[in-house]
């Protein structure tokens, strides 16, 4: 292989490592070496950046903790709803959207918590705690919503609020948790993040999870800003209409 081809081959390897959620530089010396090279070799870095961009992804961060990628609009690497959970209803999607945001907010409630060093471990989280947290905020949101917003409640808005209320109050027979209850949905969300290498299971028996360094990095250097922008544009759009 020519020199360029060798570099491209190694660049591909680094991207492949980044695409495997459970792979870390701590478990693979080759991955750690490629990350080191990414930092020091500008030609290698340029090729990795170019290939990543060509694949429809962008680099969130590249440190000794790993190479973290996010998929841009239209990328084949973008997560589809079915990758997350199959056959979700529209209301389920809305609830799972809330749950994902709630997990991020629970782990890093304030800017100074998110801004801590990348390796500081966030709070422990359980499906029950998370469901309770959402319930608390949903109730706060319902009482603090401006009167004009409540008066202007669309049928759709009411529908999803009902779905949230139903999921929150869903009782199960025999003490078995239903996958359609809010706690069940929270468990699914945490399990999914765990499979993506973004949560670790601290205590399997008591279903205690904790955000990983990868999760903090993803939120700190990319997702938190983007979520804020998203909410600001949503709010601006609502005001315009």
């Amino acid at each position, binding site marked *: 292989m020519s020199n360029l081809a060798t570099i491209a081959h190694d660049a591909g390897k680094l991207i492949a490592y980044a695409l495997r959620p459970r792979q870390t530089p701590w478990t693979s010396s080759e991955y750690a070496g490629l990350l080191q090279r990414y930092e020091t070799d500008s030609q290698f870095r340029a090729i990795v950046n170019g290939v990543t961009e060509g694949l429809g992804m962008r680099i969130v961060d590249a440190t000794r903790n790993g190479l973290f990628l996010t998929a841009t609009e239209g990328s084949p690497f973008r997560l589809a709803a079915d990758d997350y959970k199959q056959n979700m209803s529209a209301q389920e999607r809305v609830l799972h959207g809330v749950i*994902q945001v709630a997990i991020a907010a629970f782990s890093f409630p304030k800017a100074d918590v998110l801004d801590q060093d990348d390796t500081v471990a966030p*709070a422990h989280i359980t499906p029950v705690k998370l469901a309770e947290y959402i319930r608390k905020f949903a109730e706060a949101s319902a009482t603090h919503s401006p009167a004009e917003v409540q008066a202007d409640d669309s049928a759709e808005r009411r529908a999803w609020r009902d779905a949230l209320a139903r999921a929150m109050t869903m009782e199960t027979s025999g003490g078995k948790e239903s996958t359609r209850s809010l706690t069940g949905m929270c468990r699914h969300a945490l399990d999914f993040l765990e499979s*993506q290498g973004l949560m670790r299971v601290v205590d399997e028996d008591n279903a205690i999870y904790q955000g990983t360094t990868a999760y903090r990095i993803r939120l700190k250097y990319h997702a938190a*800003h983007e979520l804020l922008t998203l909410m600001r544009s949503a709010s601006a759009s609502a005001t315009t209409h």
Partner: protein
Amino acid sequence: MILGNNIPSDDLFGGSPSSFGSPPSNSPPPRTASLELRELGDAVARRTRSLIAPAPILELEADKSKRDVDLSKHDLRMLCLIALDTVIDRMGFGSGATRRDIQIALAPILYASEPDLPSERERLLLDIILDALLNEKRQRQRFVSRYATLEGGAVRWLEFEYALLEERQTEDGEGRVFRASKEAINLYTSMLGLDLEDASIADAAVLRYQAERGRLDDAIQTAHQAQIRAKQYAEHIRTRLEVARRDVEQAAWVGQVLPVIDEALKLIGNRMEKERELRRGLELRRDQASGPDLAKLTRLLNEIEKSERTNLDLHRLLLTANQQFRDEHARQRLRRPSAALLPNLETDVLLPWLDSPSAGARDRFATALNLTAGVHAPSVIGLDALWSKLLSPPVIVIPVEADTELPATTELAKYPPPFAREDFEVSARFLRNELTSPRRLSELLMTARNQSLSDPACRLVVLLSMQQFGAATEYRQFCVEPGGLTFAAGGFTGDDLLLSRQ
């Protein structure tokens, strides 16, 4: 003490509550008094913060009766302090105490208080202690407390944000360790906001004084305190460097951080030299010592060595800090969004999300998922791969090889056939010769006996006669009909038969 005779206490605290927060009087206070007032304000603020820092530990003990479990046998304050002690003792650069370390340190105390403590309860107590120190109740946010300060004679309310413990990923990426914050170390050393550099110099002087005068018990205590303070100082410098490294855009490296590094290098260099000298002297004394003094000197040297290790690590960090900053600067230029101005996810994102109309929320699901939950690596089949699959040679099925090994067998015993070839030949020849005209079977048997045919040959004559009786035409060789009589001859009995060649 700063509260000197120049400032009557009435001037500071004697005012009525209504005067708090009001602007100072029109007549300016004397210059010296103003300076001392400011110093007093600073000192009081530091002491107030030192008083606030143990609040989470005190609250934990005060609220223990509200819990579902009976914790009356345990002093949670003491357990918290022992946990902090363990963490501080194991702190160095990039390391700290594991949960197991803390569990081991607490176990003897827990079992001393409650000898029949079940392991689940021990785990629960450990969780309670760690949760309190981490502020798990508030998702590990910093503790916040309001306090009043004096500013130019006026009272101003401020917020004191602090932490006690944090959990970090270890250098190898796999484990987790706990590290104490500077406030927690402060709590441990009871420094009440003293200047760290001054305290460090004072420790060294006191330690030398005590060691030289043979006050070894006191010297051990001072050395222990000094090594904890060395860690605290190291932590203080490390935090400053980390903050600067994390956000290079905000850090005034040349103007602010480089002078800190220079100052710290001088202090550490000086401190290391003094410790080295002291250690050499103590090592000589130890070599000549015996009995209790030997044990005390060994402990003292052990504490000094711990302090030396911490200082050496810090020295190394300081020497490489400038290069690390430059590397980080180069790296952060590549990073698109700045770490600064991060949102409060609870108030800036979650609450508006819950408030937003449904249609938007549904559409935002995919965006939220892709922002927070990583990427999906699809299994893509390319056209080339598809062609190669289609054009590839047929799959050769390799049959599973049969087990050809013969099973272990034993040969069955061979029995001789009932009739020999000669018997068949003799009986056939006999019938051909004798059956020239119709004959009874009984007569033929008598003739056979007379011709000395063997028993098997005679049996064959009988059997052949019976076979031919009623045989199908294509198999019939001679005719056999019932003879109408019974017979008993040559050892055979039964109905007699009439045999003929058609």
